[in-house]
């Protein structure tokens, strides 16, 4: 590619910084005992479910755990599909 091409094409070609950032976030999590991470999530999920089950019947299959690891903050999302609730006022 010509000098021109590499100059103009540059903005779309600089993928290496993205790669570096992704690796830094990933490895920071993996180095700090990620082996326990899924155990922790398992526990959280089990205990949260336990609390909810005291009040509602929940199907295990209708529970989704989502995670997005970030640089300084991670997002843990637990989606629970709740069946139609019967209110006391209903027949």
């Amino acid at each position, binding site marked *: 590619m010509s000098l021109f*091409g590499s100059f103009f094409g540059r903005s779309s070609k600089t993928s290496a910084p993205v790669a570096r950032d*992704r690796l830094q976030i*990933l490895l920071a999590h993996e180095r700090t005992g990620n082996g326990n991470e*899924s155990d922790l*999530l398992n526990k959280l999920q089990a205990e949260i479910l336990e609390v909810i089950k005291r009040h509602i019947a929940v199907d295990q299959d209708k529970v*989704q755990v989502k*995670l*997005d690891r970030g640089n300084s903050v991670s997002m843990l999302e637990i989606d629970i599909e709740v069946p139609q609730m019967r209110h006391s006022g209903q027949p």
Partner: protein
Amino acid sequence: MAKVLVVTSGKGGVGKTTSTAALGAALAQTGQNVVVVDFDVGLRNLDLVMGAERRVVFDLINVIQGDAKLSQALIRDKRIETLSILPASQTRDKDALTAEGVASVMAQLREKFDWVICDSPAGIERGAQLAMYHADHAIVVTNPEVSSVRDSDRIIGMLDSTTEKAKGGGKIEKHLLLTRYDPARAARGEMLRIEDVLEILSIPLLGIIPESEEVLRASNLGAPVTLSSPDSPPARAYAEAARRLEGEKLEVTVPVERKGLLARLFKGKS
């Protein structure tokens, strides 16, 4: 009826994971339900190449051991709705991958998806054998290089002897995917020619993926090359290979850079 595909090679570093991601995305883009499964227990990387590494919660081993449901371990791609990934475990020991466990997961995947694409670990050990065991089709990823061709030959032997299909007296359908091909060097006689590799391995050709800097860029960005630069030669080669997998009869060519410099500059601005 779901099709189970294994992407295998024997040799490491030839492009199995890149090819799994690119073909998976290309098939999913046609609206079919696709899951890519990482079988490289201990050294998972498909999540990283697919850009899903930050979203892994549960993995294949968690499902096999009953710690998570399959639906909980599947990660849906953020770009293509019909594409999912099932990550491999990073830390647990390899014996956790049991034959029965894999069989049960594969049976469930067959019910949920149109295509199940298994990214095999390198080597010919248990992990590689389990990855290929349930496959209907095998994509043998080969570089035009002596050690890669030799390893592919061994893998082809295994596909014909140790898979479920082979044991049942059937035949697994094998396809050759030639990657990192450099037409200029082949023309100068510096690289094994396509015909040479085909003659030696004698399995049908699925596609030729030209050597390209776009492949590294895709992996940097965490996107299959068919998504990160769909017009690039490798992306077009993968897209055509995907169409051949769906049964289309397309002549195999080596895609080249389409446009001149000016055209590319203008396109970049639009």
